[in-house]
């Protein structure tokens, strides 16, 4: 069953149009990679989905039109965002960051600390004083605490040491194996995306140019639209 559907989505920053025709169909429990070169509109698509940026076209979550809803309503319906740049609440402690927007469900503080033991050791530490990797884990934990049906991860391994990236990938793998949550993934590491994702949507200059299962994504297409194979 389709969880998230985008049809003919466009969006602009002021006069500069960034999205021209984005189409995306994400099923329940699916892990989808949203791929494309730098500046092609991946993060902009995420902003439109989260209603942080005005867009046009069809935007449906669980069959309901969410294009007119405010950001917080969309989140309450079950979209959890791990934004580009992490954006932890810097003056709040780890525990406060996690509980600020918590909603009842599977995910609770102990479960987050089980997934990311490093956070458990730093509950009263202020987010600003965490390392980049810890902030990334906090950002993921914070989104999970809202108990979303769909988790959106925008560059969750960017700028991290290889060992920390590995920890994040392991955590994502666990999410997939243990909870059946749907995930929309944006990342620069094509290798990991290919291993973990069920499907992919490729965008170029604000247009969806390819969509299908990850298995069927050939290296030619990948080379053409993402630049690596």
């Amino acid at each position: 069953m389709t969880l998230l559907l985008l049809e003919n989505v466009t969006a602009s920053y002021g006069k500069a149009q960034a999205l021209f025709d984005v189409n995306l169909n994400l099923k329940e429990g699916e892990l989808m990679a949203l791929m494309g070169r730098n500046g092609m509109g991946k993060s902009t698509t995420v902003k439109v989905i989260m209603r942080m940026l005005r867009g046009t076209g069809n935007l449906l979550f669980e069959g309901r039109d969410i294009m007119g809803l405010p950001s917080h309503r969309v989140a309450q319906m079950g979209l959890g965002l791990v934004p580009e740049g992490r954006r932890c609440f810097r003056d709040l402690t780890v525990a406060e960051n996690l509980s600020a927007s918590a909603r009842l469900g599977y995910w609770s503080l102990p479960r987050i600390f089980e997934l990311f033991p490093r956070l458990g050791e730093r509950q009263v530490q202020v987010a600003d004083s965490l390392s980049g990797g810890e902030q990334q884990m906090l950002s993921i934990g914070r989104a999970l605490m809202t108990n979303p049906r769909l988790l959106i991860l925008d560059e969750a391994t960017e700028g991290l040491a290889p060992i920390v990236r590995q920890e994040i990938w392991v955590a994502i793998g666990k999410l997939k194996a243990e909870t059946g949550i749907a995930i929309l993934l944006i990342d620069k590491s094509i290798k990991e995306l290919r291993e973990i994702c069920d499907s992919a949507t490729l965008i170029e200059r604000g247009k969806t140019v390819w969509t299908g299962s990850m298995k069927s994504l050939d290296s030619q297409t990948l080379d053409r639209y993402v630049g690596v194979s």
Partner: protein
Amino acid sequence: MGAANSCTQTCGVFMSFALFAEQVLNGLQSGIMLFVMAAGLTLIFGVMGLINLAHGSLYMVGAFAAAAAAAWTGSFLLALVAALTGAALVGMFVEMLVIRRLYDRDHLDQVLATFALILIFSEGTRFFFGSFPLFLDVPKVIAGPINLPIGIEYPVYRLIIIGVGLCVALGLWLLISKTRLGVQIRAGKNDREMIAALGVNISALYTFVFAIGAGLAGLAGALVGAIQSVQVGMGEPVLILAFVVIVIGGIGSIKGAFIGAILVGLTDTLGGIFLPELFKLFMEGSIATSLGSALASMLIYILMAVILVCRPQGLFGVQG
């Protein structure tokens, strides 16, 4: 003879000490009321980034609501409840009608728009209540003085004011640092777009914060209105002091507002009394009085300047 002499001396010392203690209490009392006023101002400025000149109008609204409720019900307690809820409700409506359109605008627009609100509130109040001051009477049981140790006599009502202010301080501190709502408010201060994208209705939260600030300003207006008088324009002098307080304390900091308010209250009160006396020690009486009181009225601004030179972000402000 010698014994009697030493007695008058000690009594004299006690007398002046009692006088001094009384002035300190006065300073505390006015400082704490200033805090109740400034708390909302600093929250609104710190959390929403809004300069609200109309905060003094909410102080006035509270005082008038109290005077009207007291005249109607005869109960001082109900008058205070009316001040708090009345000002909070007015604050809520003003936020939803006007203020929320100002958050994303620059400070000049905010100053202009909230200045317009001052005019509307002042003329509106004048229209309904007239220009003459109203009086809000403190109940007889708490109006009189009470004997404190070492011969200090102090009005019960003013002690109650200090107590109420301390409770407000404690309550606000608990709200901001211990409750989930407080966590969300602080999160919104860091990244408003992000807390909304996590499912928190940030505009409702802002309305709530504004209403709390407004309610507290109204409460302060009523409590002080009972000592002074209730009249149009009563809020603006306090507003200026409250801005001095939040600048000294560091914008957005409740703790800073508390310390800043007490500092300003004490400096203002003690300076006004003791500077002229101090000057009399080494100059002629009338010159000392006029020079002393002139300097006293500048004292809090001097205090502010000194603090800002040492700590540009204020005592408890965050740098940058």
